[in-house]
C-alpha cells in the first residue's frame, strides 16, 4: 500500500462500512495491523471506533502514554503490548456517507507531522473515491479513480453535489452513499460533470426514479438547457447494471 510508505508507517488497515453500525476489516498490511483491527472490533473501543463516532481523524501520539490508557483502558495496553506507539485513524466519508476507516500504525511515538497527516488525509479521499467507484461499477480501472470520472474529485465538489445527493436519496428511497454512487454513475454514463448533473437535480430539471429511469421533468424535458445530454433518460439509466450491494 503506497500510503504506508509515503507516511512512513509500519502498517495500515482499512475497514469498510457494511451498514450503519457494521464495519468489516477488508484490508491489512500484515499480522500486526490485523491484530490491532481485530482488537478494536472485539473490545469495541479504540481510535478507529472513535474516528467513526466523532466523525473526525484521531491522532494518537503514543498509545502507551497515560492519557491513551485513560481513553481506551482495554485497547491501549493491548496495543502497547504489540509494540505499537503512534496511531492515526481517519474516517473515509463524505457527509453522512460513511464508507469506512483508514488506520495507520507506527512503532515510534509522535510520528505524525502536518505533512504526513495531509498525505494520509489525501489517501483517505482517494480511498473514498475508489470505494464509490467500485460500488458504482463505473471505473474498473482503479488507477483512474478520483480524477478520470469527470467529477473533478472530492476537492471540487460543492454544495450542490451534497444537496443533490440528499435529494436523490429521497427520490430513490436509498441511503446517501447509494445516492452519491448513482449520481456519479449517471454523470459517468452520460459523460457529464458531476457538478452539472447535481445542479440539474437541485434545479429540479432532472430526477431519479426507483425504476431506473432518470427523467428531466418541468416541461417534458424538451426545453432542457443541456439538451444533448438529457435524452429523457431513455438510454442508459442511472441504475443500469449497478448493484451497489456488491463487494467493495
Amino acid at each position: 500500500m503506497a500510503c504506508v510508505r509515503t507516511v512512513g508507517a509500519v502498517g495500515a488497515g482499512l475497514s469498510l462500512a457494511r451498514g450503519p453500525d457494521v464495519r468489516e476489516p477488508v484490508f491489512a498490511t500484515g499480522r500486526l495491523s490485523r491484530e490491532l483491527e481485530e482488537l478494536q472490533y472485539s473490545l469495541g473501543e479504540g481510535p478507529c471506533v472513535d474516528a467513526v463516532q466523532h466523525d473526525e481523524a484521531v491522532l494518537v501520539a503514543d498509545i502507551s502514554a497515560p492519557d491513551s490508557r485513560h481513553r481506551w483502558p482495554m485497547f491501549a495496553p493491548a496495543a502497547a503490548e504489540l509494540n505499537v506507539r503512534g496511531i492515526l485513524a481517519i474516517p473515509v466519508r463524505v457527509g453522512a456517507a460513511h464508507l469506512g476507516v483508514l488506520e495507520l500504525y507506527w512503532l515510534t511515538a509522535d510520528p505524525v507531522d502536518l505533512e504526513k497527516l495531509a498525505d494520509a488525509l489525501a489517501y483517505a479521499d482517494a480511498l473514498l473515491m475508489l470505494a464509490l467507484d467500485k460500488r458504482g461499477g463505473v471505473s474498473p480501472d482503479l488507477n483512474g479513480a478520483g480524477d478520470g470520472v469527470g467529477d473533478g474529485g472530492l476537492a471540487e465538489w460543492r454544495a450542490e453535489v451534497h444537496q443533490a445527493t440528499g435529494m436523490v436519496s429521497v427520490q430513490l428511497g436509498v441511503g446517501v452513499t447509494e445516492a452519491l454512487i448513482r449520481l456519479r454513475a449517471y454523470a459517468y454514463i452520460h459523460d457529464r460533470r458531476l457538478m452539472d448533473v447535481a445542479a440539474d437535480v437541485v434545479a429540479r430539471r432532472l430526477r431519479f426514479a426507483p425504476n431506473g429511469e432518470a427523467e428531466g421533468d418541468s416541461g417534458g424535458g424538451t426545453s432542457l438547457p443541456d439538451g444533448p445530454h438529457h435524452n429523457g433518460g431513455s438510454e442508459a439509466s442511472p441504475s443500469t447494471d449497478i448493484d451497489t450491494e456488491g463487494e467493495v
Partner: protein
Amino acid sequence: MSVGDPRIRDAFIELADTLVADYDLIDFLHVLTLRTVELLDVTACGLLVADHRGVLNLVAASSEQMRLLELFQLQNAEGPCLDSFNTQSPVQCPDLSKVGDRWPHFAPRAIETGYIAVQALPMRLRESTIGAVNLFNDTVGVLDPEAIALGQALADIATIGILQERAIRRQEEIVAQLQGALNSRVLIEQAKGVLAERLDVSVDHSFGLLRDYSRDGNHKLRDVAADVVGGRLHLTARPPRERGHKATDPDNP
C-alpha cells in the same frame, strides 16, 4: 454601530454563553454570522476555513441563498477570502466594479448577485491562519476602523469556537478538527437536499427547518442533519411548535 452599542454587549454575551461544554458548533457559527451582519451593518457574511489541501470551504453563512453560497465557493480559486487567507491580513474592497483584473471570475459574479463592496478578515490562530470571514455589502464603501476591529474580534471568536477548549493545540490536531467541522457542513447540505425533496421546498428554505427543529428541541444542528439524512427523523413544514416528530410517524409534508 459604535462600541457603546448595547447590541455588541448582548452579542458577545450570547456567543460566550453558547461556548459551554459540548456546544453546537454549526449553530454557533451560524449565529455568529447573523450577529456579524447586524453589528457591522453588512448585507451578508460567511465563514470559510481551509481543509487539509489548503482549499477554502464554507462552514457557515448568514443566508443559505444558493447564489450567495456560490460566491463563497468560488473563492477556493480567487477572491478576497483567498487573498486574506494567504496574506493573513484584512482585505478591503469598497467597489468591486473598480478592481480591474484582480478577481476576473469573482468580481462580476458578486456584482451580478447584488454585492458591490466586499471585505475579508483572516481567522488567525497564533502564527497561522485557519480561514477567513467574508463580508458583503450592497452599497459602495469600506468599513470604518472600529467596525473592522469588531469584525476581527468576531473572527477571533469564530476561530476559538472551531478549535475549542485546549489552549495549546498542535497543528495536526487543528487540521483534524477543521476536517470534522467541514464534514458537518457537507452533512447539512445533504440534509437540506433530503428535506427539499421530501417537503418540496427549496434547498435555501430547508436550512431554516433544520435550524428551527434543532433550536426548539435543543438538539445539535449536526445531529438533526444526521437523523434527517439517516431517515430517523422526518420534519414537516408545519409551524415550529408542531414541527418535527420522530420517524414512527409517516412523512407528512
